[in-house]
């Protein structure tokens, strides 16, 4: 059923099971972030060396801007908490955000600017797979640690590097986590419909592999160009024998897909299964029932009830969202929750890595990288999504996932898929630890 609330133990990030000391640990163990603590924190980094700059690549404009707003808000809130707690190793954390315009060329160009002109020592990167894949070669060339937030598996696979990490899911882990459940419970004959770019094709490739290994049948894929508005020509090609229609879209294409698929009655003829990305930043109620009954694989469940612990509750409070739909209190925006936690957690992870390795400047990057390879993160305010590991070999985050269904316009969690199960099923396919820095 839902994620079992774990007894809060630690806020910090650790390697090989050793819990690291941090200000936040002290603060939460004490029960609160008090104003006295804030004053102590600000004095501490005032005395230390200059600020540490971490770059943030976010989609503030363009097609992914409904997600980018939340990535930026998460990064800013996390940075505020870190600075209120004394910064990183006594130094102020300065997060510099640059807008990728949801465009791979612009994103890669601005990454170079973030590192070379704005002095970013580390970068928490884009959620747009195209931007992310265009950025990794730049980060590698400039020997800068770069965290991807998108899902195309290549970022920590064939196009990855020793400098590229990802705390969240990729299409490899998403398919391994959710597809077996969907195969067992929803149907054996699958058709996949997805946007005609890196993210969609990556999902198709990985899910097809899993379903075929399980003995299922996967029909011809349906790739939809990103500029499509009328999806009837694509939906009309879904074979009648399809039992599971697996879809991966984002933004306007998602709404167009659910709206037009529902109008054509596909939801009644077959089960519809998708990943959280397809409904990020969208409340099912806002699309008037078009997503009703659809199954989703989430990694940070939208309702608090699905992972009911104090860190999740505090995250919801800090992000000013409601605990059921994830809607912002001051606007009608809905959080892109299954992705936007990554910039938040990446900053805390980098803080832990910098402090543990004694990083002072660029020459100490190797220590940070070695810390990250195999880092274990404990359920805490620093890591509110939950316990997770960053596998040493493939630099990939392994974390709990959740199967949810939209019922009555809200998400209801059906099953938690523990990270141990995912880790056992999905061995690393790449080993970056052997690559020289």
């Amino acid at each position, binding site marked *: 059923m839902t994620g079992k609330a774990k007894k809060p133990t630690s806020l910090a990030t650790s390697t090989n099971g050793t819990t690291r000391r941090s200000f936040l640990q002290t603060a939460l163990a004490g029960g609160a972030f008090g104003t006295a603590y804030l004053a102590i924190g600000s004095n501490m980094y005032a005395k230390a060396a200059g600020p540490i700059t971490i770059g943030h690549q976010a989609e503030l*404009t*363009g*097609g992914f*801007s*409904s997600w*980018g*707003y939340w990535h930026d808000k998460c990064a800013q809130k996390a940075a505020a908490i870190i600075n209120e707690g004394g910064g990183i190793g006594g130094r102020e954390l300065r997060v510099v955000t640059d807008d990728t315009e949801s465009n791979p060329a612009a994103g890669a160009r601005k990454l170079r600017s973030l590192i070379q002109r704005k002095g970013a020592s580390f970068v928490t990167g884009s959620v747009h797979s195209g931007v992310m894949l265009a950025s990794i070669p730049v980060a590698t060339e400039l020997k800068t640690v770069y965290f991807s937030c998108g899902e195309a598996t290549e970022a920590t696979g064939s196009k990855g590097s020793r400098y590229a990490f990802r705390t969240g899911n990729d299409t490899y882990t998403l398919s391994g986590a959710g597809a077996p459940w969907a195969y067992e419970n929803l149907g054996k004959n699958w058709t996949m419909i997805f946007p*005609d770019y890196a993210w969609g094709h990556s999902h198709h490739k990985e899910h097809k592999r899993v379903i075929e290994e399980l003995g299922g049948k996967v029909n011809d894929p349906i*790739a*939809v*160009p*990103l*500029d*499509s*508005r*009328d999806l*009837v*020509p*694509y*939906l*009309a*090609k879904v074979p009648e024998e399809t039992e599971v229609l697996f879809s991966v879209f984002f*933004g*306007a294409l*998602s*709404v*167009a897909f*659910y*709206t*037009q698929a529902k*109008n*054509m*009655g596909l939801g009644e003829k077959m089960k519809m299964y998708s990943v959280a990305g397809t409904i990020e*930043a*969208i409340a099912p109620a*806002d*699309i*008037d029932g*078009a997503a009703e009954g659809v199954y989703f694989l989430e990694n940070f469940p939208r309702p608090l009830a699905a992972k009911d612990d104090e860190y999740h509750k505090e995250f919801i409070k800090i992000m000013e969202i409601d605990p059921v739909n994830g809607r912002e209190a001051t*606007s*009608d*925006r*809905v959080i892109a929750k299954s992705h936007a936690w990554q910039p938040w957690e990446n900053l805390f992870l980098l803080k832990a890595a910098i402090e543990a390795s004694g990083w002072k400047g660029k020459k100490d990057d190797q220590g940070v990288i070695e810390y990250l390879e195999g880092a274990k993160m404990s359920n805490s305010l620093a890591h509110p999504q939950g316990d997770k590991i960053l596998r040493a070999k493939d630099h990939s985050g392994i974390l709990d996932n959740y199967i949810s269904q939209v019922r009555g316009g809200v998400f209801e969690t059906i099953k938690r898929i523990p990270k141990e199960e995912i880790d056992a099923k999905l061995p690393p396919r790449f080993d970056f630890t052997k690559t020289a820095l």
Partner: protein
Amino acid sequence: MELVLALAINGLIWGLIIALIALGLSIIFGLLDIINLSHGDFFMVGTVLAWFIVHWTGSFWLAFLLAPLIGLLLGALIMKLVIVPIKGAAALSIVATFGLSIILQETVRATFGPAPKRLLPPVEGTIPLFGIDYGIYRLVAAGIAIVCLAGFFLFLHRTKIGAWMRAVRHDPETAVALGIPVQRIYTITFALGFAIAALGGVVAAPITTVDFRAGVDILPFCFMAVIIGGLGNLQGTAAAAVLLSFMEGVITAFADPVVARIVSLCLMSVVLLLRPQGIFAGAMS
């Protein structure tokens, strides 16, 4: 065979909606020589206005009336603020309308929000159409598009302002000599172009989505229709939009929809090479 028929009819219906939007693009070019890169955003503003009006009043049909009227006012305002200062400079018009496009998108993103929304169709339900369940509203939308297209051409050929618009397009100097208020006709034409695109937005919104980038996606197809139909050739544009969409529908039944779009682009290239005035020039201008 059933799939071919279903997709051909869907192409025809979608083409009628596109024709409405492309028509606005064509009249603006035909009269003002402006290559309007913000025209897709006029359509997008129509979808957003429809969403707000339906949200506040609950009436789709009120949106159908009000959105084009607001579009008319916005069009007149844009004409005065953006187009008049660069009138006669084609290169500048591209830059200015590109800037206008960004301003419109970002204004909508800042007010309406970046997340896409859905507008429920005023008529729900499906009918079986050659093997697929087809939304009834699409048929209604096609009917509305036909009525609007017919209404526009009646306006153009049966009213004084319509006659003035045609006269100014044909020979602006003589029109001035005959006492036609040419500047006002320019403004009316641009405003009408906005209003028609906004009307297209209202009609299309329940089929697609309401979001600040809706116009970016629709503009290339409108340009293809205008180029194949003949720049400034209004009937040709409408016919080309329907023809292109119908052709893509038929091809989609046999091949990937991407192949259908490639065929359309090839057709456009052939037209540009062999008949740059458009395939309907002479017959319908």
